[in-house]
């Protein structure tokens, strides 16, 4: 009996010794920076694949840098966004490997699926040579514990929503997660470049990946060099998983589900602009990707808008289009126009969001301190909302259709038309009450053509613009919209905060709008007719076979002749 407690104590001691030994071996491992040969191999790969953006010296000053936003990582500072390690710590070797493999969606950092595992490993080792921190034995990165996920439930989402507000996420990311929090316009990174709070309602654009594990990791370890803090100490894993579940619920879908067609649905009641977006409840939504206008001088390499969502309805007289997109802040002052000049020098080093005076980081110094106090307990938002000063350029949106309905495949040039075929531009400067019309014959030839046919109404709510355009189906001098017909359509969006105007904007290529006929033929009638016809033939055949051969057997039903004939 006495031997048992002793053996137990021995066991505890053994485990303790084992743990200490294990810890020591981790520390003793030292920095994981690969061999000389691996780094040398990585150097060759870096020169070929990475130096153009990240620079020969790894300082993020490559050839492409003036046109990139977010800017390429400066490896010399040792500050890396996506890590499994504590706030302010270096990334692990595996963290570096992962980000090279996966890239950062919706930035200029691509994924590198073509590189072999060995190549990526060598690259990751070479990157460590840019910062002395990686060889510092006291800064060997240690992953923080990232426990696996409980399954998402309605309760966890509701709890996450509550925590999201209590923790202050909404101050930057906005109440509905659209990156429109009151602090969002003031955010800067450690290099004093303006930085945007992530639009949490578009999970496919998340820099560090959109899986639940990715979101949980980001929330736990933060983004070094940015105002995004780490919550590994401030929140329990359960709380972080709950917020993760809430963030996942904000997007509504796994991917953007980009479309190429806007289907306009017929409505019986006359369209009333005063009813606003409610009129569009039954109309299918098409999300169309926005790309930078990088074809004409005055280019926008990284428009903050990545997509517009379009719905359309029509009644006996008119068609109405609802265009929605997320915008960090509504610029309702200043002016905008499709042909406002953009000085060529603005293409260089044009970081979006330069128009507002810099605020301090909403989290103060907290994000710089690796072992800092839990940020959530501070009041990082004492400075309050962004100064609501007048913007030079207002937000704006534009719908483009051909001036004449195309008779064949030929369309006007997708950027404001061309000399041969012009486009109608429905332009809504959101500092004004009503839209204007222009005729475009190319970016350099845009003339006012305000027939007064196009009316509209715009509203901004919690990070989203909703703009409705309305026009008669068949005006005196413009392309008609006809039920059952397709018409090319394209969109442009200007973000006044990013000083977008004229050629500097986000745009779509040509897509189509289709007016679904008022009476969509029901499939029920033809289905029943076909089924009855075949059933009758079957019964006739079976009946005949039974009458002819069936003296031996008696039954109720019958069957067709030869499967070959039926199938054919």
């Amino acid at each position, binding site marked *: 009996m006495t031997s048992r407690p002793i053996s137990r104590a021995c066991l505890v001691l053994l485990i303790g010794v084992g743990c200490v030994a294990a810890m020591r071996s981790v520390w003793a491992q030292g920095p994981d920076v690969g061999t000389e040969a691996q780094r040398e191999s990585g150097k060759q790969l870096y020169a070929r*694949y990475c130096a*153009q953006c990240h620079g020969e010296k790894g300082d993020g000053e*490559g*050839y*492409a840098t*003036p*046109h990139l936003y977010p800017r390429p990582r400066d490896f010399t500072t040792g500050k890396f966004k996506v890590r499994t390690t504590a706030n302010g710590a270096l990334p692990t070797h595996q963290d570096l490997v992962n980000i090279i493999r996966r890239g950062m969606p*919706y*930035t*200029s950092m*691509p994924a590198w699926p*073509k590189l072999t595992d060995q190549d990526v490993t060598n690259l990751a080792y070479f990157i460590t040579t840019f910062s002395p921190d990686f060889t510092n034995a006291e800064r060997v990165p240690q992953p923080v514990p990232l426990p696996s996920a409980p399954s998402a439930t309605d309760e966890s989402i509701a709890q996450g929503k509550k925590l999201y507000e209590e923790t202050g996420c909404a101050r930057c990311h906005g109440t509905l997660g659209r990156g429109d929090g009151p602090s969002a316009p003031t955010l800067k990174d450690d290099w004093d470049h303006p930085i945007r709070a992530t639009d949490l309602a578009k999970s496919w654009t998340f820099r560090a990946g959109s899986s639940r594990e990715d979101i949980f990791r980001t929330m736990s370890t933060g983004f070094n060099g940015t105002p995004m803090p780490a919550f590994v100490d401030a929140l329990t894993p359960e709380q972080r998983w709950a917020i993760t579940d809430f963030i996942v619920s904000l997007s509504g879908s796994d991917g953007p589900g*980009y479309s190429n067609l806007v289907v306009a649905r017929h409505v019986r009641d006359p369209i009333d602009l005063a009813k606003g977006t409610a009129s569009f409840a039954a109309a299918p939504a098409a999300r*169309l990707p*926005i*790309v*930078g206008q*990088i*074809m*004409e*001088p005055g280019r926008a*390499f990284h428009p903050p808008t990545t997509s517009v969502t379009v719905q359309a309805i029509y009644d006996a007289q008119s068609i109405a289009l609802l265009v929605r997109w997320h915008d960090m802040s509504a610029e309702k002052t200043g002016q905008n126009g499709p042909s406002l000049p953009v000085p060529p020098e603005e293409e260089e080093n044009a970081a979006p969001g330069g128009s507002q005076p810099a605020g301090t980081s909403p989290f103060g110094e907290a994000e710089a301190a690796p072992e800092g106090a839990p940020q959530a307990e501070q009041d990082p938002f004492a400075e309050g909302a962004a100064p609501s000063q007048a913007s030079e350029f207002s937000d704006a949106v534009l719908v483009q259709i051909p001036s004449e309905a195309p008779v064949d495949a*030929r*369309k006007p*040039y*997708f950027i404001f038309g*061309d000399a041969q*075929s012009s486009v109608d531009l429905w332009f809504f400067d959101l500092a004004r009450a009503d839209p204007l019309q222009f005729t475009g014959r190319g970016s350099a030839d845009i003339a006012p053509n305000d027939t007064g046919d196009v009316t509209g109404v715009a509203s901004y709510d919690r990070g989203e613009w909703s703009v409705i355009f309305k026009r008669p189906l068949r005006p005196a001098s413009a392309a008609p919209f006809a039920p059952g017909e*397709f018409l090319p359509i394209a969109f442009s969006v200007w973000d006044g905060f990013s000083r977008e105007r004229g050629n500097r904007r986000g745009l779509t*290529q*040509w*897509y*189509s709008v*289709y007016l679904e006929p008022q009476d969509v*033929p029901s*499939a029920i009638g033809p*289905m*029943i007719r*076909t*089924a009855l016809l*075949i*059933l009758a033939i*079957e019964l006739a055949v*079976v009946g005949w076979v*039974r009458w002819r*051969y*069936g003296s*031996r*057997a008696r*039954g*109720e*039903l*019958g*069957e067709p*002749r*030869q*499967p*070959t004939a*039926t199938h*054919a």
Partner: protein
Amino acid sequence: MNILVVLAVAIVFGLLRFRRAGLLAWAGAWWVGVYVLLRFGFSAPIPASVVSLYMGIVSIALLAYVSSSEERRDEVSRPLVRFMTEKRYTALLGATVLAIPALAAANVYVRMNVPLEPPLFSRTVHPASPSEITVHDKKIDLDTAENPFLRLERTNPGEFRTHVENGRRIYYRNCVFCHGDDLSGNGMFVHGLDPIPTNFTDGTIAGLRDSFLVWRISKGGPGLPEEGGPWDSAMPAWEKLLKEEEMWEAILFLYDYTGQKPRAREETAHQ
């Protein structure tokens, strides 16, 4: 050919032979077998209209075969008659009689709910170039023009590398957004572009003269002839943004980075 599908069909036919299947089973097996081969046996998909045409021929052939003699007619009709008259098949017969109209109705439903597709325009990918273009008030004869920096590779390798490096800078400041970091046409804006940007790594540019490239670069999408769909292409007319030598330097970089050579002029002369 999709070898696995072909093998599977052959194995099923072998098994039927081994089990001495009746003529009716054989007719059915031939019909299904040919359909499977047409539909799944070829790596390039065959249009549905062609498949149904072939299946019509197969059906007629099978009908003709099984009705070509008294014996065969009997062999086929006997199991069918038994199926329709014998009591033990009544339940199965009833199910079949109901299943066939239900399937036909489902088919009608699917056909009436084909997703809407906007009108398609099939463009010519590499339309013929004009014989001459004017870039920055300078005429370039596309039949004779060659990259002025290409010969430096032999005569002055140092200067050649300088021009390649200039091309590299131009590429990553301007072209990377669509044509991608590794030049394979997968830049960050491709999800919003149709036609998609050219992939420079797949050998396409090795089959083109470098004068063709200077035409495509200087005049861009708007400079395409009608059959190229100039209204849809997002390729800028780079003469608005780059000097002529900068375009040649970018072309130099495209060939150098991908380890390719432009098609030589002598080859064109033969055509």
